[in-house]
C-alpha cells in the first residue's frame, strides 16, 4: 500500500515537472513544423490537374481525420489505464484528449464538406467515410456529455472509460455496417479519391502538415493534462479546507472520526 500511494503521489509530480520543461519546446516545434507545412501546402505545391486548387483542402482534411482517430486511440489506451492499471495520470489523459479529438473530428467534417461542395456538387454526401466520421463525432459528443454529467472526477473517469472502450469496440462495427449500407444504396455519381495515386509533390505537404498538427495536438493534450491536474488539486484543497472548517465547528472528541468519514 505505501508503494502504491507513493506511485500515485510521485507520478503526477514528476509529470508536472517534466511537462513544464518540455511544453514550451513542443509548442515551438509544432508551430515551426505547421508553418513549414502551411508553406508547402499553400505556396510550393502545385494544383491537382483534376481537382485544381481544392486539393489543398486535403492537407488539412487528412491530418484532421488521422488525429480524430489517433486521439480516440489515446483515449482508449488511457481508459485501459484507468480501469486496469489504475494509473493516476490515465484519468487526466482521458479527459484532456476528448475535446481535442472532438475538435479535430469536427474540422475533418467541415473540411470534407468544403471539399465536397465543389467536387461533388453538394455539401454533404452520405458517403461511407464521411458517415463513419460523423458517427465518430457523435460518440465524441457522448463522451464529452458524460464527462460533464458526473461531478466526482474519479467516478466520471471510470464511467467514461467504459463508454470509451465500448465505443472502441463499436467503431469497426460502425465502419463495417456503414460500408455495407453504402454499397447497398450505391450513390449515383461520386468522384472517388481512392483510385488516384498521390504524387510526391503532394505527399510532402501532406506529411509535414500531419506531423505539425500531430505535434500541436500532443502539445494541447499535455497542456490539458496539466490544467486538469491543477484543477483536481484545487478541488481536493477546497474539499480539505471545507473539512477543516467543518471540523473547527464541532466539539473536539468527535472531530477526527466524523471529519474523516465526511471527507468522501
Amino acid at each position, binding site marked *: 500500500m505505501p508503494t502504491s500511494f507513493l506511485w*500515485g503521489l510521485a507520478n503526477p509530480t514528476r509529470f508536472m515537472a517534466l511537462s513544464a520543461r518540455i511544453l514550451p519546446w513542443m509548442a515551438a516545434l509544432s508551430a515551426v513544423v505547421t508553418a513549414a507545412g502551411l508553406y508547402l501546402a499553400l505556396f510550393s505545391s502545385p494544383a491537382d490537374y483534376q481537382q*485544381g486548387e481544392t486539393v489543398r483542402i486535403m492537407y488539412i482534411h487528412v491530418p484532421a481525420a488521422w488525429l480524430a482517430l489517433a486521439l480516440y486511440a489515446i483515449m482508449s489506451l488511457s481508459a485501459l489505464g484507468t480501469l486496469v492499471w489504475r494509473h493516476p495520470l490515465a484519468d487526466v489523459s482521458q479527459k484532456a484528449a476528448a475535446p481535442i479529438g472532438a475538435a479535430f473530428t469536427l474540422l475533418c467534417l467541415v473540411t470534407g464538406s*468544403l471539399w465536397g461542395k465543389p467536387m461533388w456538387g453538394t455539401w454533404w454526401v452520405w458517403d461511407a467515410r464521411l458517415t463513419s466520421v460523423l458517427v465518430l463525432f457523435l460518440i465524441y459528443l457522448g463522451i464529452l456529455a458524460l464527462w460533464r454529467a458526473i461531478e466526482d472526477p474519479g467516478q466520471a473517469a471510470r464511467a467514461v472509460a467504459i463508454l470509451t472502450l465500448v465505443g472502441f469496440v463499436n467503431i469497426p462495427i460502425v465502419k463495417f455496417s456503414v460500408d455495407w449500407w453504402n454499397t447497398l444504396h450505391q450513390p449515383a455519381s461520386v468522384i472517388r479519391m481512392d483510385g488516384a495515386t498521390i504524387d510526391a509533390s503532394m505527399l510532402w505537404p501532406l506529411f509535414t502538415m500531419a506531423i505539425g498538427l500531430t505535434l500541436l495536438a500532443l502539445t494541447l493534450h499535455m497542456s490539458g493534462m496539466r490544467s486538469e491536474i491543477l484543477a483536481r488539486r484545487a478541488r481536493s484543497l477546497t474539499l480539505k479546507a471545507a473539512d477543516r472548517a467543518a471540523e473547527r465547528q464541532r466539539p473536539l472528541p468527535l472531530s477526527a472520526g466524523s471529519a*474523516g468519514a465526511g471527507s468522501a
Partner: protein
Amino acid sequence: MIALDSPHIGFVLAAYMAAAIVIAGLVLRAVIDSRMRNRALDILAARGVARHRVPSSGHPEGASAVRTISDGRDTVGSESSAQGAGYAGRGEGEEGGTARSHDDGRSDRR
C-alpha cells in the same frame, strides 16, 4: 503557389479559415484554462498558507488524525488519483518547484 483566381478558391480559403478557427480555439482554451487553474490555486494557496502560518489555537492532533484517516481511505478509494494529483505539485507552478514539491509530498505523508 496557390492561384487566387481559381474557381474554387473560396472553398480552399474557407477550409483553411475553419482550421485556423478550430486550432486557435483549442490553443486559446488551453491558455485560458491553465491561467484560471493557476489563479484559483494561488488564491487557495494564499488562504492555506495564511492558515499554516498562524498556529491555529485549536487542535493540531485532530488535524493530523484527519489527514491520516483521509490518506488511508484515499489509497483504497476512488479519489486516490485526484488526491495524489492534489498533493503532488504544490508550490510547483514556476520552474524549479520540483524539489520543493517533493518535500511537500513527504511532509504530507508524515
